[in-house]
């Protein structure tokens, strides 16, 4: 019944609209404005241009400043601070260009609206002006490129030798985390060895993997470079950590990496934001299927000592009886994982990078 009423109302509204439209045409025929080419509506549109600029400009300014505090994710990495500065500098540059060009567009539209007694100024080209407005943007662009390029090479350059290594593996629809354990070496993994109790596909015949451990969240120490090694075992995912200004795809068959230095512990950030429940989050930022929007991992930034303590308390995979048993069975079934062949090790080194030096002095004593 309500549906019918709504439908009826809609139909009636349409009829009213149609009648109004006809009426409008008939009156304009009567008043002669129907065929007149340029009438009052020209003036109204010109005024609306100006109104749009003023009202729109104010609304934009108001909403922007109103939301400004909410639109900046807190920053918690060294390069994040540099990036933020570059972002807002660029925003100011494009903001200036925005205001000038939009203002000219709307003001010209208003100012040069049709007038019967005026004629447009025949002005077809001027090479000097063209050269000027080619060169000025080119110079501005060049300086932005240069700043961007310098930062980009620094951020994407090789991680410091003493960086902490964490490996993150994306799968539908959660993240797996692995640490290299006491030997500071990530062991060989093989996607064919994956099963219910061996999510990562550890090749336990490789000695380096025996002391690796998995975790349900990422822990990293404050003030120390962290190298995130990134894998995917099914489709594309992307590691996106907005507060650290980190993003890198997780690509099946092609390990990727990103390094950064956290500057603020979780506790410090909680105090700073006045939010006792604050958590650093890692989101998936490349469409990966049904659960894409819920593919989350928490990150904890610890004081270095807490981190070392946490690290020491983790149980290596060799203590996981389930996994050891299932690995033996998988290994038998597939014929894989027999003694960590030279090739597999070479692959692993190529994929996971050179053997890291000792990351944290305290960690070395573990």
């Amino acid at each position, binding site marked *: 019944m309500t549906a019918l009423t709504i439908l009826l109302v809609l139909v009636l509204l349409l009829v009213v609209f149609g009648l109004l439209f006809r009426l409008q045409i008939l009156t304009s025929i009567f008043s002669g404005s129907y065929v007149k080419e340029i009438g009052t509506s020209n003036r109204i549109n010109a005024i609306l241009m100006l109104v749009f600029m003023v009202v729109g400009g104010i609304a934009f300014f108001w909403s922007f400043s109103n939301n400004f505090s909410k639109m900046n994710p807190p920053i918690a990495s060294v390069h994040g601070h540099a*990036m933020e500065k570059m972002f807002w500098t660029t925003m100011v540059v494009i903001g200036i260009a925005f205001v000038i060009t939009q203002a000219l567009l709307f003001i010209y539209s208003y100012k040069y609206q049709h007038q019967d007694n005026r004629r447009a100024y025949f002005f077809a080209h001027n090479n000097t002006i063209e050269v000027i407005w080619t060169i000025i943007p080119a110079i501005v662009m060049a300086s932005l490129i240069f700043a961007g390029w310098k930062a980009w090479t620094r951020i994407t350059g090789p991680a410091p030798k003493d960086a902490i290594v964490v490996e993150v593996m994306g799968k539908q629809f959660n993240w797996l985390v692995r640490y290299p354990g006491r030997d500071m070496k990530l062991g060989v993994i093989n*996607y064919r060895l994956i099963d219910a109790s061996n999510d990562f596909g550890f090749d336990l015949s490789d000695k380096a993997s025996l002391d690796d451990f998995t975790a349900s969240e990422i822990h990293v120490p404050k003030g120390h470079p962290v190298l995130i090694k990134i894998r995917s075992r099914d489709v594309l995912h992307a590691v996106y950590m907005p507060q650290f200004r980190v993003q890198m795809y997780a690509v099946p068959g092609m390990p990727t990496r990103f390094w950064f230095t956290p500057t603020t512990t979780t506790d410090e950030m909680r105090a700073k934001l006045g939010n006792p429940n604050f958590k650093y989050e890692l989101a998936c930022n490349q469409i990966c299927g*049904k659960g894409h929007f819920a593919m989350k991992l928490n990150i904890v930034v610890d004081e270095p000592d807490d981190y070392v303590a946490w690290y020491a308390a983790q149980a290596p995979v060799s203590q996981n009886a389930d996994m050891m048993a299932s690995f033996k069975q998988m290994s038998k079934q597939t014929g894989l994982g027999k003694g960590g062949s030279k090739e597999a090790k070479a692959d692993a080194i190529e994929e996971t990078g050179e053997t890291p030096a000792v990351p944290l002095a305290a960690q070395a004593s573990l």
Partner: protein
Amino acid sequence: MATNLPASTSSQGGIGTAPVPHTEHDEHLHDHEHHDQHWLWKYVFSQDHKMIARQFLITGMVWAIIGGVLSSLFRLQLGWPEATLDWLQPILGKWIAGGKLDPEFYLALVTMHGTIMVFFVLTAGLSGTFSNFLIPLQVGARDMASGFMNMLSYWFFFLSSIIMFCSLFLETGPAAAGWTIYPPLSALPQAISGSGMGMTMWLVSMVFFIVSQLLGGVNYVTTVINLRTRGLSMSKLPLTIWAFFLTAILGILSFPVLFSAALLLVFDRSFGTSFFLSDIYIAGQALHNQGGSPVLFQHLFWFLGHPEVYIVIMPAMGMVSEILATNARKPIFGYRAMIGSLIGISLLSFVVWAHHMFVTGMNPFLGSVFMFLTLIIAVPSGVKVFNWLATLWRGNIRFTAAMLFAIGFVSLFISGGLTGIILGNATLDIQMHNTYFVVAHFHLVMGSSAFFGLFAGIYHWFPKMFGRMMDEKLGYIHFWLTFAGVYLVFMPMHYVGIAGFPRRYYSWTGFDAFSQFADLNKFISAAAILAFFAQFVFIFNFFYSIFRGRRASENPWNSTTLEWTTPVVPGHGNWPGEIPTVYRWPYDYSKPGSEADFIPQNVPYSQTASSNLPYERELND
């Protein structure tokens, strides 16, 4: 079938004719020949470029409505994630069981919205309509170089449309891996149900679409090069034609690369190859594929994908230049700079594709190179904007609906283009990649802008298409509602993006980091849905005016280009008599010394002695 078509003899001159001579006698013959055409050949399997243009336009409009409906649906979800939408159950069925949109169907909506808008509306609907309609009319040709290929171009598009449309109703849903269909998600039905039959139909549909684009493109290029009328050198072409010409070249060079990507993806999906797949464990099973690279697909896709956004925007740029000049009653400022910047953009558009891939694991050095090339492309784009502004300066502006949309285009192009400077910077893209900042950016700069170009074109050339005028007042209402609506949707979307909200998220409620903008998302959704409904003003106006609009005159806008020298509704062959000869450039508006404020291109200098510029006096005879 082709040989039975009476119209097939009409493709004027055919291939191999010399560029200029349009001998009149055979044109006359054709004219008489077609007066009693069967409706099937006149309206359906027509080889007349004007009819084909109208076919592209109407099909494009149908697609635009579908694309708009899809976006309204997913905006409902994003604006009111908690709402129960039972009332949609009769339409969406199992996809909205219990009033909650299925997350996989949400992804399908997003995917199909992108595919439809980018390819079917803004490529086929925009370029297909206006390249077809305007190229022969503005270069002074009887028709396209090959009318038959032109007809095929539309019918391949139609076939492709039918396949894509059918895929919307599949049991497993349409393609859902994003419009960029990155494998492995798009390659594995185990990963998402839309990658089953839905993806197959997507790929098949795109193959036909590419065929359609290539047939059309070859035709546009050939026509512009070979069939220009007497006196119409490349340096006298209207900017519309330059834009269509370069767009067609971009399409011819880039669409085959998408074809190759699609083909390899078909191989991976169906024949067990490993072009894009490697080391995959999915649905409890390790796949045999090894050695492929998903990043390779991204290179192939964006090699088309980036020129594609210029394929979308350049025709709009061309038409806007034309409309601004006509309605400001002033020559376009810097005609040669405008051509130069179009050429610059076309060349650069082929070497910027990897800026979509800064953080995909591509070598960072490549990232530096592409950042450099990407930011360079801002220069010719800036030149265009400055030239448009200079065209308005000291003009005598007539606000037709077309003019409003052209001004709106410039405004949106500026707003969207400037944020490209942020996204093209690899460093800043680390944070902004795949956030709503990107969504806001491209919806302004190539989505809404191109739509505004499309609307401007329709309002402007409607009189030539249908012989009647569209209602101006409804046009004004349509413009102001749409213009305000677009800004209300996409300006706040930047804030959401700066805050890092990821795109293609069904809901953000699971993250603390993305919990602050529920109100803003509601606002964006409401504005988007209202802006969508405002389009029905246009649709009403369009169809009403086709049948009952005020009758148009031959040249209602006092414009200079050749299409306005044809009869009110040009028949087959466009000009009943001889094809006009061109003597001058297309922008002689408000020329000092001339009484009329416009001098059409086909008026010789000998007739305008009082207004000729010094160097033109020599051309007098």
